[in-house]
């Protein structure tokens, strides 16, 4: 492409700030992490009834 190298890595569309290169994939992963974190806090843990401990 016009004789200069292009990165072989195609992370797709990305925001470019001076030191930050944030792709849509990055944002989706961070969003997923927040969702999983909130779910882990909110969803009640099944209690093990019938176990021999008190």
């Amino acid at each position: 492409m016009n004789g200069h190298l292009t990165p072989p890595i195609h992370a797709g569309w990305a925001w470019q700030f001076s030191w930050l290169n944030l792709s849509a994939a990055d944002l989706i992963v961070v969003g997923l992490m927040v969702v999983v974190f909130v779910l882990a806090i909110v969803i009640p843990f099944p209690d093990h009834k019938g176990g021999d401990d008190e």
Partner: protein
Amino acid sequence: MKKNMTRSLRLWVQNTLPMENLLPDSMPSYVDSYVYLFGILTVAALVWLIITGTVLAIFGPEWWHVSPVGHFFNSMHFWSVQAFFFFMVLHLWAQFMMAAWRGGRHWTWIGGWLLFLVSIVAGLTGYLSQNNFDSQWIGVQGKDAINSTGIGGFFNILNFGQMYGLHIFVLPMVIIVLLAIHLMLVRMHGVVEPLPNGKEEVDNGEKVAEQ
């Protein structure tokens, strides 16, 4: 009694990490939350990383870049990395939110950070070990950044043999040792108590006063 290294080691182990603490069969009720599973999910991802990585190392790049089964193991290795960092970061958030360094657990916290930092270097050396244009590109693009720090003098990211050796042996070993220490510390101290809930304390106090 005469001094005896074996005996003093046994007594030290018995005192610092008795079997009931190393392999407990019950946990405090506050551990009944999914938040406490992020650490072990990170361990699970690491186990998959080691299994798939071993298969990749045995058969080599001509296999993992060409054969369908090779692609499968390559993908398994790649997605295990994603799960590993995904759960490690969630684990870090969870420990941060509950200030899990309390009660003398600072070395568990610091060890966790060391694990995080070593894992990042393991990820970098992994990208450099792919044996394709991606890894060449990363090596050539990254060398200037590494050299500008001075680390390039002994950590040469264009030296494939060095990066591959670090990736498949040295760094996994460091992670395994740090993880063993991390988990032993968790067992020694027990799971950290939840942060004090101001309201609950007042409630309990009132109840006690009424009785």
